[in-house]
């Protein structure tokens, strides 16, 4: 018992000393990072060529425009749940801490509990979590190829004058730089080749 107390005290002292170790290190300079964009919704895009056209055209269906207006109206007021969670590291840390405490205390309760009913409840919860995990694996397994797969033949199709159809995320970015279409194509050049 005494030995355990001494060990615990030593460990606490070691942890506390870390504060002084880092206390003299200058705070890292924070470089201004560009504000990340925000994907507001997913739609489809067809890239087609028109030999008679003099100017590039972006055609947007009325329904898509309507949806775009709706989502941009709510852009600042309603960030998605994931974004709301990701915006606050304090909340994420606290959630993690409480999750840790919940699992730890649940384990202690289960170990100390002599009732078979409690064991059955715990087994039920574990089974439920396992089933949800298995279901998640199945969902992922049927998720299909990534969106970039549909765009892989875009250069060839453009040269042939054929249309290419694939998915598109509408992303709102800060600034006034017009529109930018980013295609998920990988460069076929080998490393070092220019």
């Amino acid at each position, binding site marked *: 018992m005494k030995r355990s107390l001494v060990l615990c005290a030593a460990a606490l002292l070691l942890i506390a000393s870390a504060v002084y170790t880092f206390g003299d290190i200058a705070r890292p300079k924070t470089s201004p990072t560009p504000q990340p964009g925000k994907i507001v919704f997913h739609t489809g895009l067809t890239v087609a060529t028109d030999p008679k056209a003099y100017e590039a055209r972006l055609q947007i269906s009325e329904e898509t425009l309507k949806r775009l207006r709706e989502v941009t109206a*709510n852009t600042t*007021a*309603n960030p998605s*749940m994931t974004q*709301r*969670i990701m915006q*606050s590291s*304090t*909340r*994420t840390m*606290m*959630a*993690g801490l*409480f*999750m840790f*405490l*919940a*699992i*730890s*205390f*649940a384990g202690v*309760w289960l170990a*100390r*509990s002599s*009732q078979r009913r*409690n064991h059955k409840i715990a087994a039920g919860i574990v089974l439920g979590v396992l089933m949800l995990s298995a279901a998640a694996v199945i969902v992922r397994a049927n998720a299909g190829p990534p969106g970039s797969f549909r765009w892989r033949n875009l250069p060839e199709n453009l040269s042939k004058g054929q249309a290419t159809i694939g998915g598109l995320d509408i992303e709102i970015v800060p600034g006034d730089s017009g529109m930018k279409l980013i295609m998920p194509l990988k460069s076929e050049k080998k490393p070092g080749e220019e």
Partner: protein
Amino acid sequence: MERAANIPLAAWPVARPSDRTRVPARLFAAVLVASACLSAALASWLPLQVSIVTVFLFAGPHNWFELRYFLMRLPARFGRSRNFFAVAFAGIGVLTLGYLALPALYYTNLWSGENWPVAIATWNTLLLLWLAALVILRGKQNSRRDWSWALPAAFGLCAVNWLVPDLFSLAIVYLHPLVALWFLDRHLRRTRSEWLATYRRCLILLPLLIVGMLWQLSGTISLADDNGLAWRITQHAGGQLLPNVSTHLLVSMHVFLEMLHYGVWIIALPLIGATGAIWSTKTIPLARRRGGFPKVIAAILIGSLFIVAVLWMGFSFNYAATRDIYFAVAMAHVLAEAPFLLRMI
């Protein structure tokens, strides 16, 4: 003696409890079903108007009935429950003051709006830990109970709360009205056990009505919240937190649950005698016991009636502001329900 023996026994009704209460139980079920269906229909039809009227009429009186009920359930001497009630009252006081302080700090610019979710999450955490403490203390009063599961459950809920504090608070708004149904269940078990099975069968109607409302109202256009009062009501129901859900559905659902809540406290529980004769203080242990405080209890009840009248006046003069103040202060009664419900389990 001979004549008595010749009396045909078959002609005498057997005074069994089930026979005595068969008709009232059916009547009770009919009233429950009719009330629930009428509440759902009214809430779905005119959500904003019904919300305004029900809060105006019933918010104050239902709090008075709850106060009356809590006084009746408060033991004359705490005895072994001293720690339980000490934690309960301390929690009600601290959490209510904390809840009232949050908007006050916000409006006086002492608290940044960006930190609002952290403040809400902190308050919710304190609430959950207080509830866990009450459950554990209550569990310790009976050696056959092992309620230590409350702590991991509370920590798990705390984790969810820190991820989505605003949605967690909204869940409390929607779940609180259902607590009244639990109170009714416990009282029926004690006082009208013959009605309990009927009542529980009637409860099956509740999820059916909720699913029906979801089905009917999920595709409706959101309510026009162009004035301050309508905006407050839609916000209270979670209009901003659930932007993809029609506010017509949210407000209707909230009003429906609130109507059930008011119905239980103002009609159902007094009718089955849970609150005793409302004009008499003899059913309140603190007033009845030797050396008790009958005058203090009477003064509290009369003073509370006066507050109900003031609330009605406030609603008449400035409904929106009074509604805001009411729902902030009413957190005390939400908290007070927890220890008294635990005492009945």
